């Protein structure tokens, strides 16, 4: 088989890449090793409404719920609410990734991309030392796909970069290890996302509850890898459930890892581009990666459509991609990495102090940046180190 572009992985990054490139006229093949796109889910499914709308028209079939705001609970139990209730605005969506991921793949297919599921990329094809496509396996059968450019959208377990000589291995301090239950409980508030902080609750991370409507929510935990031990996320999540939702029914179990490494040294090689979690583009503070993955996918797809017809796919030519993502989403990722490095070592006293300082304060900009700005205003001395990052 021969094409202009092979995309490995059909998550949000891969599908947006394939869609953008196919729309611009490239002959695209997208491979997904799972037999069902999007399943099993590895996500808490929360996204900013405004950011998502810039990339795709929201469709009720893949939106589980809309949320009005967030509650943050300090280790000592103090709770603050941040919301835009007064304006009645909904600020976030909680998605149904199983439906969402497939809908994005469908868009790529509609744009003309060939989608192959249950098809695993096994390695790169090489032609005189230059990558020239991939070998893959479909229901046990091996075959070759020749293409001048391969885009690795293969998620946290990415191999495409490694095959091309890019070291993407994450250090324990650069991954949040996560467990999550889909919980049914009458105590679940359908309107608010909740965050629980504390070194006993979730070392170097947090516990979240993202409502999916009608009394169910994704209740999960992220623990910083360097502070974890085997099985810790699952153990702590069960402890949390016992304390907070003792009668909660568990309808689904999710596990996974989120890169929180900040930008890695390089995301292109000759004939290869990495996007999304494969390029470690998830947000180091929130662990959110859907929007960045989609953004990077669009950039990579458009750049591929420009460069492949010209035959300019060497790592030098592909610097356009490095430059474009680092100047846009990369800036936020770098900044949030620095902030994360500061936050993960705070004591419970520090965290209590910070949450208390938000009590009764109006957080006008309901996003991470807005929240951090207020935190710095309220704690100028304590957060001196962060000041230059935010303003």
């Amino acid at each position, binding site marked *: 088989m021969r094409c202009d572009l092979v995309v490995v992985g059909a998550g949000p990054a891969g599908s947006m890449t394939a869609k953008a490139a196919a729309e611009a006229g490239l002959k695209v093949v997208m491979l997904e090793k799972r037999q069902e796109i999007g399943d099993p889910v590895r996500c808490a499914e929360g996204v900013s409404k405004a950011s998502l709308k810039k990339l795709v028209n929201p469709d009720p079939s893949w939106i589980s719920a809309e949320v009005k705001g967030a509650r943050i609970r300090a280790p000592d139990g103090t709770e603050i609410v941040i919301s835009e209730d007064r304006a009645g605005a909904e600020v976030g969506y909680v998605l149904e990734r199983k439906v969402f991921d497939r809908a994005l793949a469908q868009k790529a297919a509609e744009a003309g991309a060939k989608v192959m599921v249950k098809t*695993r990329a096994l390695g790169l094809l090489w032609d005189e030392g230059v990558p020239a496509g991939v070998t893959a396996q479909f229901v046990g059968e091996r075959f070759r796909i020749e293409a001048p450019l391969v885009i690795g959208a293969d998620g946290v377990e990415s*191999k495409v970069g490694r095959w091309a000589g890019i070291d993407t291995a994450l*250090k324990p301090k650069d*991954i949040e*290890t996560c467990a999550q239950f889909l919980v049914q409980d009458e105590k679940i508030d359908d309107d608010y996302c909740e965050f629980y902080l504390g070194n006993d609750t979730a070392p170097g991370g947090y516990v979240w509850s993202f409502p999916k409507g009608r009394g169910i929510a994704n209740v999960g935990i992220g623990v910083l890898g360097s502070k974890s031990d085997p099985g810790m996320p699952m153990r702590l999540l069960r402890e949390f459930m016992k304390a907070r939702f003792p009668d909660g029914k568990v309808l689904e179990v999710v596990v996974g890892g989120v890169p929180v490494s900040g930008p890695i040294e390089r995301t292109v090689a000759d004939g290869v581009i990495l996007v999304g979690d494969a390029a470690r583009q998830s947000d180091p503070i929130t662990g959110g990666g859907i929007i960045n993955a989609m953004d990077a996918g669009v950039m990579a797809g458009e750049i591929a459509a420009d460069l492949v017809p010209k035959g300019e796919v060497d790592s030098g030519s592909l610097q356009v991609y490095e430059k474009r993502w680092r100047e846009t989403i990369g800036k936020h990722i770098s900044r949030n990495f620095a902030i994360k490095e500061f936050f993960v070592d705070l004591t419970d006293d520090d965290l209590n102090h910070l949450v208390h300082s938000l009590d009764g304060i109006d957080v006008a900009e309901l996003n991470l940046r807005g929240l951090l700005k207020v935190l710095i205003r309220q704690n100028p001395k304590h957060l001196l180190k962060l000041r230059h990052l935010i303003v």
Partner: protein
Amino acid sequence: MLTVNRYKCGYCGACVGVCPAGALELVETWIEVNDDCTRCGRCAKICPLGALELIKEAKA
């Protein structure tokens, strides 16, 4: 030797992402370990379910 408890594993791929040796691969719903494993233990430390374990081999 690194052992994978298939009955515990949730096939999330997190271990694959941290392995410095590239010794792991998520194939369908199981984790495969190849000979490049250096028994560094990093994957076991971060597995959210505790499905990986380094077992000391008896010296021959």
